[in-house]
């Protein structure tokens, strides 16, 4: 992987009538990276992908592919194949004819076509279904046909628009592995649009989080998870406890923030210098919260709460708690840890966390 950008979005705006789908997007996509664009529906992620594919034209700004402006290049003259959410396989063609389609459209000669299709059928393990109608395949097989159909021209970049959303959980994980391996072996750029955190974080080198047409944060899974940049990102990930308040004291090693729920000591953030009286928001992720039935030892931030309920998430559980001023707290714990506590709804529980577990949001 090199740092040379393959695709550049330079101040790209896309409006549909009065609706701004993408708002001044600046984004570099590197050669050979697996980039996921994540956000809830309507955040502009699919529009961004469609502009890159040439299915929508930007209203303002410039998109460059390999240094060349491609704003007005029709999609059939770009080599930016896309794997569709619906897969969009041609139902009246066989597996082979589907995979062959783009080679035929580009006028590749017959024997060459056959050779390249065979290679890809083999590679995607669908050679045995070559002459079957695509309607007669299972979900996973159809997925592989869609991939082979897009990759048969050996493009520099592959666009994927939530291709796994229709699959069941098991097959989804299996296809994630297929995609990751494929991307690593081919060394080409994958741009993957999804609303699923698990898909984005498990496959992508970098994740872009979008909201209302703007980029909220770009980074790898750890960066985004541990150090969200905005309140939106923290809320979107859903695993953080968010506290907002005013700075009441600043020392060399800690910042004290006074919130409606109490005063807390927070680790300073170099990206966000604070002075007394500033407004500040900090987050603590739910797996860094300690729970106890008796008051914890000193040196920790603590909060007295009562249990609201428990949410089962496989190997762990999320305890929902409520503190003073109706502040909501979440704590994620293993079942072993929870077994030692009394967590009947309504029970008093002390929540505590160390200043090092906190992160001050760089932007308010």
């Amino acid at each position: 992987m090199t740092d040379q950008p393959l695709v550049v979005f330079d101040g790209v705006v896309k409006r549909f009538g009065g609706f701004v789908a993408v708002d001044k997007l600046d984004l570099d996509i590197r050669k050979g990276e697996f980039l996921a664009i994540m956000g809830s529906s309507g955040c502009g992620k699919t529009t961004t992908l469609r502009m890159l594919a040439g299915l929508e034209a930007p209203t303002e700004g410039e998109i460059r592919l390999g240094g060349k402006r491609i704003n007005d290049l029709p999609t059939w003259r770009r080599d930016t194949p896309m794997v569709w959410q619906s897969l969009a396989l041609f139902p009246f063609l066989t597996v082979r004819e589907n995979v062959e389609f783009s080679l035929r459209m580009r006028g590749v000669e017959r024997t060459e076509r056959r050779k390249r299709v065979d290679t890809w059928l083999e590679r995607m393990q669908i050679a045995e279904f070559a002459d079957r109608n695509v309607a007669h395949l299972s979900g996973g097989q159809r997925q592989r046909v869609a991939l082979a159909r897009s990759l048969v021209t050996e493009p520099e970049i592959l666009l994927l628009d939530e291709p796994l959303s229709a699959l069941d959980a098991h097959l989804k994980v299996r296809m994630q592995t297929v995609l990751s391996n494929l991307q690593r072996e081919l060394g080409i750029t994958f741009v993957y649009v999804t609303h699923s955190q698990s898909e984005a974080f498990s496959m992508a080198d970098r994740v872009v989080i979008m909201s209302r047409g703007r980029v909220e944060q770009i980074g790898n899974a750890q960066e985004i998870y541990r150090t969200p940049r905005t309140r939106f990102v923290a809320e979107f990930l859903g695993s953080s406890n968010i506290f907002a308040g005013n700075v009441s004291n600043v020392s060399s090693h800690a910042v004290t923030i006074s919130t409606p729920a109490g005063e807390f000591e927070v680790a300073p953030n170099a990206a966000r210098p604070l002075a007394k009286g500033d407004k500040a928001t900090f987050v603590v992720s739910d797996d860094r919260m300690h729970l106890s039935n008796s008051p914890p030892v000193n040196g920790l931030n603590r909060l007295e709460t009562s249990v609201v309920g428990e949410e089962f998430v496989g190997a762990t559980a999320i305890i929902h708690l409520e503190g003073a001023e109706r502040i909501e707290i979440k704590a994620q714990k293993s079942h072993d840890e929870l077994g030692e506590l009394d967590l009947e709804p309504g029970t008093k529980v002390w929540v505590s966390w160390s200043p090092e577990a906190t992160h001050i949001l760089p932007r308010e």
Partner: protein
Amino acid sequence: MNDFNRNRLVDWALKLYVALSFGFIFAPIAASFVFSFNADRFPSLPLGGFSTVWYEAVWNDPLVWEGLRNTLIVGIVVSVLATVIGFGAAYTDFRYRFFGKTVYVALALLPPTIPVVILGLAMLAFLSSTHLSGAIYSVMIAHVVMCAPFAMAICRLRLSQMDPSLEAAAWNLGATEWMAMRHVIIPFCKPAIFSALFITMAVSFDEFAVAWFVSGLNETLPVKVLGFLQGQVSPRINVIGTFVFIASMTLVILAQILLMKRSAAPAGGAKETGAVTP
């Protein structure tokens, strides 16, 4: 049907009702068919002997052949033109969004709802003032106007079943708009296109009123039949009626089979999905 609340009497009454309805619809046609093989000059019971004499009479009548030839030429030309126009109109509706689209679709589907007498008169007035009346192409023009909406309705239905990303997927894979039309849209719509060809041909085949207004000397078969009826009651009418009925029904049934085949096609694949590991 659920056996639990089934009433025998109601059951029988319903079956009888269905049988009577079919009888009411098909009895005149069946009578026409039976009498076409009757040796008697007048259609009355009891039947005379079996005979194909009227078929021979029709076979040897040059006027009938001329009418049939006109009908066929008109039918073929009309079905092709109406299907092309209908498909184009349906695709425009499918692909584009524009101001006044609702009005466009409503207007495009309007002709079959106009009473044929009014349409016939209007056609005659228009065609004669543009010096296009009284010829075989007058009938063609009038029939294309009447048939294109049927073709449009059929193609529109088919396009509405298409995954909207299919065409964009073709462009994305390197097909220009014309190539996508040729390699994706038309193959997808093929059953509907054939079905539209047959239906429009059938509509043109037994359309009488408008053809009567505009055909002049180039009478189609249904117009000829009226000519026979006005002159004399001849069992030859039964023969022609039987023939027209069989021809139209064949076309309509062919269209139906095509439409049914395509809706049944995807179901076949579901069975295997579980068995093969992806």
